[in-house]
């Protein structure tokens, strides 16, 4: 056993932490309030190689591993969830399917722009009537004269509608009993993107509804063998869960640190409230649970980096950190009292940003289904 991070991982964590504190923290509140996509920050992250952490260098990525990716997402979320989900959705959902299932030609065509962060990638799975039951997707792709003709709609899609969005990989029915994944480039006639959806949190991230009306892409945009879409997206979601779980740890860590700082400074009854057992016990519980959640996330990332099965651990990490971040942010706001309910402290933003961690990329209930299946139930 070795619980120490390697020197590279430790330096990466410090670097992302410094970047987040120095470059993101000063603008996070404004981006959230104005619902403004963080183009400048994405460009800087791209410069540092953080828009393609686990993508091999030969395709324009940084050639890092899953643990380094998880550490980076954790540190970004400690400061700003909107930026973190932009990176996580782009990497795990937008770029990974092409790396895992793309032909050499598709990889050469799409990955250099995506992995370098010049373009953003999106993944379109959820539909208005197909959420947890993703296999019930109704969007169709019909093969006609060497082209896929796509009809249908997708909802809650991250990164599809920015000025730098390059493509979306969508899950579509290619026959009555067959799902396949197809790449649809932005700008394709018949591919319409809604105005940004109004959300409770993640306000600086890009979330859209997509509609496809006789949207026609070349037959070669099919990702991997026809009919493999279901298996592919389950595998994609397995990996994506590690980054969303890292977000849970990062959000909880950020909320905890804010509560700790506030409790040390805020005086009531003649002393800092941190000296009150009612408050110090809350902080002790938070620190304990965060540490437990972090170990689950790192273990899932480590398993993936070892090339070993990680689906069960990823689902456990996602479930646990989703619930833990809810508890932690709730208590962290409680410690702030009335000030916590005001938008002048970041904790209110953290509170709004948290809930979706129990919904996106598989609800808590779906994680339990996945874990139960791994248990042979």
């Amino acid at each position, binding site marked *: 056993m070795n619980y120490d991070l390697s*020197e*590279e991982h*430790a*330096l990466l964590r410090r670097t992302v932490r410094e970047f987040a504190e120095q470059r993101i923290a000063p603008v996070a509140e404004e981006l959230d309030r104005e619902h403004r996509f963080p183009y400048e920050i994405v460009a800087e992250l791209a410069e540092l190689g953080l828009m393609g952490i686990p993508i091999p260098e030969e395709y324009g990525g*940084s050639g890092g591993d899953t643990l380094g990716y998880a550490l980076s997402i954790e540190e970004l979320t400690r400061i700003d969830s909107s930026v973190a989900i932009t990176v996580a959705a782009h990497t795990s959902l937008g770029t990974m399917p092409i790396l895992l299932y793309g032909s050499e030609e598709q990889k050469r065509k799409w990955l250099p722009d995506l992995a370098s962060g010049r373009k953003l990638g999106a993944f379109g799975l959820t539909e208005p009537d197909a959420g947890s039951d993703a296999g019930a997707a109704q969007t169709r792709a019909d093969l006609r004269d060497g082209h896929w003709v796509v009809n249908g709609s997708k909802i809650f899609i991250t990164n599809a509608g920015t000025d730098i969005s390059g493509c979306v990989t969508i899950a579509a029915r290619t026959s009555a009993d067959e799902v396949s994944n197809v790449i649809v480039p932005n700008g394709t006639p018949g591919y319409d993107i809604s105005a940004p959806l109004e959300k409770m949190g993640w306000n600086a991230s890009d979330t859209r509804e997509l509609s496809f009306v006789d949207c026609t892409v070349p037959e070669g945009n099919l990702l991997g063998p026809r009919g493999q879409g279901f298996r592919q997206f389950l595998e994609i979601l397995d990996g994506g869960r590690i980054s969303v779980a890292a977000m849970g740890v990062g959000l909880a860590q950020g909320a905890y640190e804010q509560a700790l700082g506030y409790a040390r400074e805020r005086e009531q009854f003649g002393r800092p409230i941190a000296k009150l057992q009612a408050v110090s016990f809350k902080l002790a519980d938070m620190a304990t649970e965060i540490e437990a959640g972090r170990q689950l996330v790192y273990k899932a990332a480590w398993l993936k980096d070892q090339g070993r099965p990680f689906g069960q651990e990823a689902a456990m990490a996602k479930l646990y950190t989703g619930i833990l971040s809810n508890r932690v942010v709730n208590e962290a706001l409680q410690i702030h009292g009335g000030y916590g309910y005001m938008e002048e402290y970041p904790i209110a933003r953290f509170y709004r940003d948290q809930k979706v961690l129990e919904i996106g990329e598989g609800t808590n209930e779906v994680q339990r289904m996945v874990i139960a299946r791994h248990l042979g139930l």
Partner: protein
Amino acid sequence: MLAPVKVAVCMKEVPAAAAPKRIDPGTKRLDRSVEGALNDFDTHALEEALRLKDSAAETEVVVVSMAPERASESLRKALAMGADRVVLVSDEAAAGSDLVATTAVLAAALERESPDLTLFGQQAGDADGAVLWAAIADRLRLPMISQAASLELQDGKVRSKRQTEFGYDVLEAPLPCVVAVSDAINDPRYPSLKGIMGAKKKPQDVVSLADLGVEPGRAGEAGSRTAVLALAEPPSRGDSRRIEDDGGSAATEILSYLTERKLL
């Protein structure tokens, strides 16, 4: 493109911003067992060296430091940012060096490297010392420019704007020379992920005083010309007045306090 040069950047490890700062009452030295980081001021010097390297690829950037061996972890950041190698002078006998002893050691390390240009940050973030660069230039008998707010290399010369209270002096010095940059000269880059992963492959040489030919008596406490006799807390300000806010009254009270004393 500029002619390639060899640039040495002197960098210090200081306690990380978030680490507790403590002076050991026994040794009267700063407790350096806490998490360390590169002195922020020195990262501006490194950034300036890396910009020279960006415009002339053959330029070699060597980081020179004197510290306990564990500082190599902090110094790895300099390699990740783009420095070519690190020379770390690490020796038990160097512990407790004052300015005189430190310059004896660093000057010897710099003489061994014989760079065209030696860069310093303006000050140390821990002890706030801001004379090391002057003392090094004196020992090496080299011209020196301090508070450099810009730096250009041309025809074997450095041209620099020196920040003053009233504007800038434009100064020129022939190479080799020593320049201490101001922290306004640039925004240091963050290490990229590729830089971080490549840093381990770059050389970090740990050298002893003997390697540099420095007699142990010239370094550490033995080589120091100053001694810390006593430490004391700064005296508390007895004349301070605390203004409590009562529904927005504090601002008015502060304003009238300052106005009374003609400070506004």
